């Protein structure tokens, strides 16, 4: 199956600053692809090149098989875009904003009216459709922006930090809609620094740091590859006098106080759990809780972006 996005040797420099450094990746059709990175890593610059807002310094991009440089019109017709911290037109109503976007994607009057009505209902904005968006809350604006990006039923949806700054309910609603759209076949390219969100939504993620891709894989595969980020969490009935006795255990690479207990980092969590039990007996402590923990995506992210 052809890729939704194919990027090869993509570079962007601003003056002497290399913001994106010869990156290459592919996004398969039908997947939710997360694009993660710390601030200033090159996430938004990459998305802006993918959505034709910025011209690459070098490299090629294909969207649904269309070369972005040679066939930008065809490529743009395939995509819906929610840019970072975008706004609807505040002096237009929600309805007028949707009509404008429908016109800009070439929808006929009848079709764009039907789509706008359906989208407003889907996003719970029907009762505010004739209100100017100046009075909308941030969550309502974000839902409208998503609706505007979906007016032409795009096959590929770009989302740049779609839930940043939203309250819990609005963020959850947006995430549910994204999953729902993906279930109907829309490919999603999600740029975010919300690792929890990426882990919950994405089939695969790419991690970018310093303008370079440092990893592309399924979240589970990335976690599995990071054996050193495994740990054992233990809670005793009484605290230990210090961390020394835990630090002295074989295979333990680090110990941290974690809430009422301790977190011991190791690449052999099973063996360390047994040693902790022995230590508890020796120190006359009861174990209230003992867990072995795998790395989460945040551990992977921190590890990879620290190394890069």
């Amino acid at each position, binding site marked *: 199956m052809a890729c939704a996005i194919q990027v090869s040797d993509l570079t962007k420099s601003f003056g002497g600053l290399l913001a994106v450094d010869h990156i290459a990746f592919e996004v398969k059709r039908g997947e939710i692809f997360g694009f993660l990175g710390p601030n200033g890593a090159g996430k938004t610059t990459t998305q802006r090149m993918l959505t034709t807002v*910025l011209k690459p310094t070098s490299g090629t991009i294909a969207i649904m098989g269309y070369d972005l440089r040679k066939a930008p019109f065809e490529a743009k017709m395939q995509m819906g875009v929610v840019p970072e911290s975008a706004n609807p037109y505040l002096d237009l109503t929600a309805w007028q904003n949707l009509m404008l976007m429908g*016109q800009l994607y070439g929808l006929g009057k009848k079709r764009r009216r039907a789509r706008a009505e359906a989208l407003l209902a889907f996003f719970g904005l029907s009762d505010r459709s004739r209100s100017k968006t100046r009075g909308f809350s941030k969550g309502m604006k974000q839902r409208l922006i998503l609706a505007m990006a979906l007016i032409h039923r795009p096959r590929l949806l770009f989302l740049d930090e779609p839930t940043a700054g939203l309250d819990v309910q609005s963020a959850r609603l947006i995430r549910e809609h994204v999953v729902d759209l993906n279930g109907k076949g829309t490919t999603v390219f999600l740029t975010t620094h919300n690792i929890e969100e990426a882990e919950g939504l994405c089939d695969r993620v790419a991690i970018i740091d310093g303008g370079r891709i440092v990893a592309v894989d399924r979240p589970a595969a990335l976690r599995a590859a990071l054996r050193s980020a495994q740990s054992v969490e233990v809670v005793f009935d009484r605290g230990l006098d210090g961390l020394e006795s835990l630090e002295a255990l074989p295979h333990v690479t680090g110990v941290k106080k974690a809430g009422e207990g301790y977190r011991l980092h190791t690449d052999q969590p099973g063996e360390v759990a047994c040693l902790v039990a022995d230590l508890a007996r020796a120190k006359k402590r009861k174990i209230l809780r003992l867990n072995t923990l795998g790395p989460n995506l945040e551990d992977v992210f921190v590890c990879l972006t620290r190394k890069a």
Partner: protein
Amino acid sequence: MRFKWQVRFSLAIAKKDARIYYLKGPVLIFGLFFPLCLFGAFVFGRKISPTLLMPGLLGMTLFFISSSATPVIAPWEALNKTLERLVSTPASVSAIIAGDILAGFAYGILVSLVPLGVGLFAFGLTLVRPAVLILTLILSAVCFAGLGTLFSTLPTTIPSNIMLLSNLVRLPLLFISGVFMPLERMPGWGKALSVISPLTYTCDLARHALLGRGYFSISRGLVTLFVFAVAFVFSSIQIHKKTMSKRLA
């Protein structure tokens, strides 16, 4: 086919501009109220016949209205975070700028009917050459709207910077374009400077159309306005294509 799509996109953008930008107070004040005040100052202050000043008022209104909002639309949209999404739609940069010009053009023509109506019905002017007037209004409105978008090529997101630049250019043009006195009465240096201003030809052609006389020939005026219009529109689109990325970076 592709061209037809882009024309449709331009019309959609023009409609959006008209709804958002052209009913705002500053645009109406600068485009209509300001020329009327200048007109009043010259009529009452220097006892010049209002009839003689009507072509100048018409040109001045068209000039200020057509170029009033076009300079600030791009920076305003960048500032309000709406431009990035617009650029990512299938509408090309040419279509976006053409839409801005179209809105300035339509609004300029519409509002210039106000001084024209005042001249015809309140001051008893007669339309001596209606075809010349129609061509003058069309060419001038395109030319001035194009000039406005040319100002907006400066890749800034601060609209007041562009307004400053646009007024630095537009206001001096008023005094070298024969708005307040016919060109034949201007001093030699004034006449020499006047040929570089497109407003000169608008006012002169309006005199031909409303008073039956002018300084340049009608054909020279129309051809010069056409050249100015093409130059402003073409260069504006070309520069916007180059600077749009910088504005959004």
